[in-house]
């Protein structure tokens, strides 16, 4: 950076707003918990400094980058980066392929989230009804698959769905009249993405089940009994007692799932051997592709920025929920 000789503190926001100087005077404090006014900011300073460097700067750079022309020659410093206004956005938004990618990403994420939540809820309810030993077995499997590194899970799924020797095709072929050996699941986009969706769901369901199970133990038994006495069936109890109690958890899980599933990257990337075909591109791989394959860093940034903006609404809902939870404590 050229600004290396200027004073460094100018680059990071001051860690504290300099409220009245630290109290040397011993005036009686109304609130003991408030402590010295500077203490919390001192404790926060290292964290905020690091975040400003590793998040603040790149985020700001992401924004400026998306308004510049920045390709291979700017990367190597042969040409200065020039500001081009909204050109990158105009180019991206005017591209039919981009909209196809957006649609694909949204459909993919919606499918993954809906299946994850429904399966997760069903399994959490099922876990309440099975015997203790089975519950423990299922829990172990769930936690183990939750803990699997994404890359490992992707590798395993690739093997399961291999066209010639994959066990999935072999199992399907055991059904009468089905001959699937040699079927390539990744020959077409929708089929391949369905497999990737399955992988995402398999990885995401355990977290949902375990969180919802914890939530289910908090549903007051008296409420359920009262509803039953009032003539509610199982569905009625679920709909009017269980669901409302679980609502904060469900909102949190759904928003988190949307954020995660809109952001799938390694699953698609590794499944397609590092070069996703056009019909496999989702927003994140598309942004990566523009930046590091086509070497148009500016356009890649513009796409990334649009992705962030698309998610902003969901993030807002999530944060409101988290803050609500925080306030209660």
């Amino acid at each position: 950076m050229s600004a290396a000789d200027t004073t460094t503190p100018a680059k990071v926001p001051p860690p504290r707003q300099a409220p009245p100087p630290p109290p040397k005077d011993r005036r009686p404090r109304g609130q003991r918990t408030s402590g010295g006014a500077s203490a919390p900011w001192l404790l926060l300073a290292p964290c905020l400094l690091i975040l400003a460097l590793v998040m603040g700067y790149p985020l700001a750079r992401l924004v400026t980058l998306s308004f510049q022309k920045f390709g291979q020659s700017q990367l190597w410093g042969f040409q200065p980066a020039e500001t081009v206004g909204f050109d990158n956005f105009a180019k991206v938004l005017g591209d039919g392929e981009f909209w196809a990618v957006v649609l694909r990403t949204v459909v993919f994420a919606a499918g993954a989230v809906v299946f994850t939540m429904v399966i997760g809820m069903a399994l959490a309810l099922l876990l309440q009804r099975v015997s203790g030993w089975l519950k423990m077995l299922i829990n172990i499997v769930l936690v183990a698959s939750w803990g699997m590194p994404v890359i490992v899970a992707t590798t395993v799924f690739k093997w399961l769905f291999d066209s010639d020797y994959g066990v999935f095709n072999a199992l399907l072929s055991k059904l009468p009249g089905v001959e699937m050996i040699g079927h390539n699941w990744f020959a077409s986009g929708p089929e391949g993405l369905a497999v990737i969706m399955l992988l995402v769901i398999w990885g995401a369901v355990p977290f949902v089940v375990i969180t919802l199970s914890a939530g289910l133990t908090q549903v007051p038994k008296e409420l359920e009994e009262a509803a039953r006495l009032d003539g509610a069936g199982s569905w009625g109890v679920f709909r009017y007692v269980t669901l409302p109690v679980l609502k904060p958890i469900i909102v949190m899980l759904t928003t988190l799932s949307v954020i995660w599933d809109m952001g799938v990257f390694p699953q698609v990337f590794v499944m397609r051997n590092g070069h996703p075909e056009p019909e496999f591109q989702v927003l994140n791989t598309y942004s990566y592709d523009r930046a590091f394959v086509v070497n148009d860093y500016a356009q890649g940034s513009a796409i990334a920025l649009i992705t962030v903006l698309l998610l902003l609404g969901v993030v807002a809902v999530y944060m409101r929920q988290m803050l609500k939870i925080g306030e209660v404590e």
Partner: protein
Amino acid sequence: MSTLAGAGRRKSRLGWNLLGLLVFVVAGFPLYWMLNTAFKPAKDAIDSDPSLLPTGITFDNFGRALDIADFWGPVGRSLVVSLAVVVIGMVVGLLAALAISRFAFRGRKIVIVGILAVQMVPLVAMIIPVFLLLNDLGQYDRLTGLIITYLTFILPFTVWTLRGFIVNIPKELEEAAMVDGCSRTGAFLRVVFPLLAPGMVATSVYGFIQAWNEYLYALMLLSQKNQTATVWLGNFTTKHGTEYAPMMAGATMMAVPIVALFLLVQRKMAAGLTAGAVKG
């Protein structure tokens, strides 16, 4: 009458259990198949009608996986990076978590919102500017560069999770110690810290797993000769696609220690993640 109802309940319990068994088999199958393939003779792995049961146990696939590309180098690098990130994250994160959970000060809410918001920025969106930044700083292809970068997701996570553990420790304990003559720091070290330790262990382990599993930054910010364990496996997948049995052996070596760690801390983390969630 009562025996009839009991029998009915037992019958429905049997139905639920059968369904549960099905779930167990389906959910566990990918794991089982990974282990099954890793330990079966390589020639049995290339069978279009594979036997679902183990056909014999061999360690040849592991040897082959270690031969194809250097395994311990990447594992060592992953260890260095993950440990460094966790240590920095814990020290810095603990201070920040204390600030936002134990002090009432102006701007607290903004800091909390900021840390939550930072957690939500997708990593992929950051990769382009981070790549350029490290390039400018001369930290491309350096482990330190990767460590700094990993703090983007480890630090907010650590702060938020530790905060969850801290708010569950009653403030009164600390106040009692202070009434008895402890300083604020002394009260923290003698009262809060011991209670917080299990939570800190869980958070560290979980952070370690996250750093260990990261793929994209490791792929983009390090060259082939400095690759980490996840990239090692990813490359295995992309370059030796036909050698599935050794690939599953590699996957097993990657997964087993991590899954074991995860099983150890999961209960604690799940409690921390959902603490208070129902109350909202």
